[in-house]
C-alpha cells in the first residue's frame, strides 16, 4: 500500500514536471515575437534585416524620432487622429448597439423576429463588399474633399452599421430578470423609465465592454481607413500609418522606428483589452443576482 502511494506520487511528480516544462516552452514561443519587437525598437543600427539576432547597440532615438516634425512619419498626428475617431465612434456605436439590444431583448413588437433574422443575414456578407458604394456615397455628399471631413466620414462608417452586432449585449439584457421590470410597471413607470433607471444602471459591465470594444475598432482597422483616407498621409490613422512605413520606399529608413511605434501603440491597447476581458468575465457570470 505504502509503495503504491509512493509510485503514484512519483507519477504525479513526473506528469507535473512534463506539464510545467511544456507550458514554459509554449509560453516562450508565445512571448518571443513580442521580445523581438521590443529589442528591435531599441536597436541602434539602422536598416532592415541583419545577419545576427541580438542588436549590437541600444538607443532611444527610434522613439524620439517618431515625434520629430519634418519626417514622413507623422506619428503624433496619426495618434491624435485615431484618438478622436475612436472616441466619437465608441460613443455613437455604443449608443446604437445598446438601443437595438435593449429593444430586441425587452420589447415585443411585430417586426422583431424579422429584424433579428435580417441582421443575421446581413452579417454574412463580406464586410467590405459594400465599401465601394459607401465610398461613392460619401464622395457624393462631399465628405472626401477635405481631410477633416474624411475623419468624420470614418466615424460614420465605423458606427453606421455597428448596430448589427447587438447579439452579445442582447444576451446580457436577457439575463436581467423580467420581474424587476414588472415591479416597476406596477409602480406606474413607463418603458422608457425602466430602460433609463433600471436596465442601464444594472448593465454597467456590458456598457463598459461595448464602449471599450468599439473604442478599439479604429485602432486596429485597416481596410476602411485605407480606402477612405487614400493618399492623405496627414490624416492617416495609426494602423495604416504604420503599415505604410513598411512599404518598399520607406522600410530601409524607418524599420526600427516602425517597431518603436508598434510598442507605443500596443501598450494602451493591451491595457484596454485586458480591461474588456475583466468586464466580459463579470458580464458572463451575471451581474444581477436573484
Amino acid at each position, binding site marked *: 500500500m505504502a509503495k503504491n502511494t509512493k509510485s503514484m506520487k512519483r507519477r504525479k511528480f513526473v506528469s507535473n514536471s512534463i506539464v510545467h516544462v511544456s507550458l514554459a516552452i509554449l509560453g516562450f514561443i508565445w512571448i518571443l515575437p513580442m521580445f523581438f519587437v521590443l529589442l528591435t525598437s531599441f536597436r541602434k543600427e539602422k536598416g532592415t534585416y541583419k545577419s545576427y539576432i541580438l542588436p549590437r547597440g541600444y538607443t532611444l532615438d527610434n522613439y524620439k524620432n517618431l515625434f520629430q516634425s519634418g519626417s514622413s512619419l507623422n506619428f503624433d498626428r496619426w495618434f491624435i487622429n485615431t484618438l478622436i475617431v475612436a472616441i466619437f465612434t465608441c460613443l455613437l456605436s455604443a449608443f446604437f448597439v445598446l438601443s437595438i439590444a435593449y429593444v430586441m431583448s425587452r420589447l415585443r413588437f411585430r417586426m422583431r423576429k424579422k429584424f433579428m433574422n435580417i441582421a443575421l443575414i446581413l452579417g454574412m456578407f463580406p464586410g467590405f463588399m459594400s465599401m465601394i458604394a459607401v465610398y461613392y456615397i460619401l464622395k457624393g455628399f462631399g465628405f472626401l474633399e477635405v481631410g477633416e471631413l474624411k475623419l468624420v466620414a470614418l466615424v460614420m462608417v465605423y458606427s453606421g452599421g455597428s448596430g448589427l452586432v447587438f447579439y452579445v449585449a442582447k444576451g446580457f439584457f436577457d439575463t436581467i430578470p423580467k420581474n424587476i421590470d414588472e415591479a416597476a410597471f406596477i409602480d406606474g413607470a413607463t418603458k422608457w423609465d425602466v430602460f433609463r433607471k433600471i436596465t442601464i444602471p444594472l448593465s454597467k459591465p456590458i456598457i463598459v465592454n461595448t464602449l471599450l470594444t468599439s473604442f478599439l475598432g479604429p485602432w486596429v482597422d485597416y481596410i476602411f481607413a485605407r480606402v477612405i483616407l487614400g493618399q492623405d498621409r496627414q490624416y492617416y490613422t495609426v494602423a495604416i500609418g504604420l503599415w505604410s512605413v*513598411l512599404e518598399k520606399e520607406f522600410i530601409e529608413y524607418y524599420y526600427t522606428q516602425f517597431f518603436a511605434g508598434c510598442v507605443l501603440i500596443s501598450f494602451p491597447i493591451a491595457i484596454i483589452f485586458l480591461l474588456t476581458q475583466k468586464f466580459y468575465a463579470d458580464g458572463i457570470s451575471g451581474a444581477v443576482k436573484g
Partner: protein
Amino acid sequence: MAYKKQKKLKISTLNSDVAFRTAYIQGNGATKLSAVIFGFGNIFHKQILRGLLMLALEIAYIYYMVTFGISAIRDFITLGTNTQEEVFNETKQVYEYVKGDNSMLCLLYGVITIFLTFGFVLLLVSSVKSAYDTQKRIELGKKIPAFIDDLSSLKEKNLHKLLLALPVSGIVVFTIVPLAFMILIAFTSYDKNHQPPGNLFDWVGLDNFIAMFQKDGVLSDTFWPILSWTIVWAIFATFTCYILGMLLAIVINREGTRFKSFWRLVFVSSIAIPQFVSLLTMRTIFNTNGPANALLRNIGMIGPTESIPFFTDPTLAKIMIILVNIWIGVPFTMLTTTGILQNIPKELYEAAKVDGANVFVTFFKITLPYMLFITTPTLITTFVGNVNNFNVIYLLTGGGPETLDFYSAGETDLLVTWLYKLTIQNKDYNIGAVIGIIVFIILATLSLLTYRHTGSYKDEEAFQ
C-alpha cells in the same frame, strides 16, 4: 392601474394591427382619400399636426421625383446613353471633353430613388392605417390622441420606434443601400474596361456568373483553387485553434499546475497587442532575410546564403499561415473556454476514473462532446469569421506568392482577399460583386443548416 393599462393596450392593438387591405376597404371616404392625400383623414378628424407632417413628407417626395427622381429611374434602366466624347473646338484650337453620362452615378441614384420610393409606400400604408384608426376611435366613442399623446407614446407603446430610429437608419445608409448597389453591380459590365466617367457600362444579366463557372475560363481556373483553399483554411483555422486552445485551457486548469494566472497572462498578452502589429511582425520575422532565417544560418542548420522560403513557397506559405493563426487564435479559445470547462460536472470525471478511463478517453468522451454542445454557435461564428478573415492573409502574405495561373490573385488568396484585390486594385467591380454574392450564399446555407438547430436559437427566452 395595471388593469386600466391592459385595457388601453388591448384597444390600441385592436385598431392599429389591421392589415392595409382591410383598413382601406372598411375605411370611410376620408380614410380612402388618405391614400392619395396623405394625412387627410387625420386632418379631417382634427389631428392637425400629425396629418400635416404626413402631407409635408408626401409633398417632399413628389417634389423630389418630379425634379430628379423620374429621370434617375430612367437612367437606372439604361445606365446612361451618352458617352463622354472629345470634340475639337475650332475657335480655341483644342480638344474639349463633352460631358457624358456616368453609369456609376446613374446606378447609385437609381438605387437611392428606389429606396426612397419604398419609404413612400410605407408612408402611404401608415397614412391609411392612421386615418382608419382615428375613424374607428370616433365610431367607438374613444378619445382621439392629440399630437402630444403621440409623442408620449414614444416612451411607452412605441419605445421601440424611438430607440430604433437612428441605429436602423445608420444600418440602411451604410449597410443595406451599399449592399443593394453592389449586388446590382454583379449584373453589369462594370470592370476595368468600362470605367465611368470615360466609358459607360451596361446591364449584362448573368454573364459574369456564367464566366465565373465556365470551364477552362481564366476566371473559373482561379475561382475553384481559391474556393478550395478558402474552405481548407477555414476548417483548419477553426478546428486547430478550437482543440488546441481547449487543451491549453485544460492543462492550465488541471489541479497540480501551479502559477495558473501567470500562465494565462503569458498567453493572453499575445492577443492583447493589436493584431496588425503581431501580423506585420510575423511577416518580418519569416522574411527571406528575416530573423528566423538568420537564426537558422547562425546555428548552421542551413547554409549562409540559403533561406527557407517561408512565405514564398506556395505550400509552405499555407502551412505557415495556419501555424501563425494558431499562435493568434489559441489564446482566444483558451480565454473563452476556461469558464465553460469549470462548469462541467465533476461527477462525470470521477465516474470515468472509477471505470479506469485514461486522459484521452475522458477528453474525447466527456470534455469534447460537452464543449461542442455548449459552443456550437460560437464555432459557427468563428468559421464564418475565418472564411471572411481578411487581416491574417492580407497582412501576412498579401495573398502571395504571385502566380501567373490566376487572374490577379496569389497562391494564398482567400475569396475575400481576392475580392479586395479585384475591386480596390483591379477595379473589376462586377467580378468582385459576384464573389461577394457567392461567399454569402456559401455562408448563409451553412449557417442555416446548423444554426437553426441549436438550442439558443429555438429557445431564446429560456432564461428570462
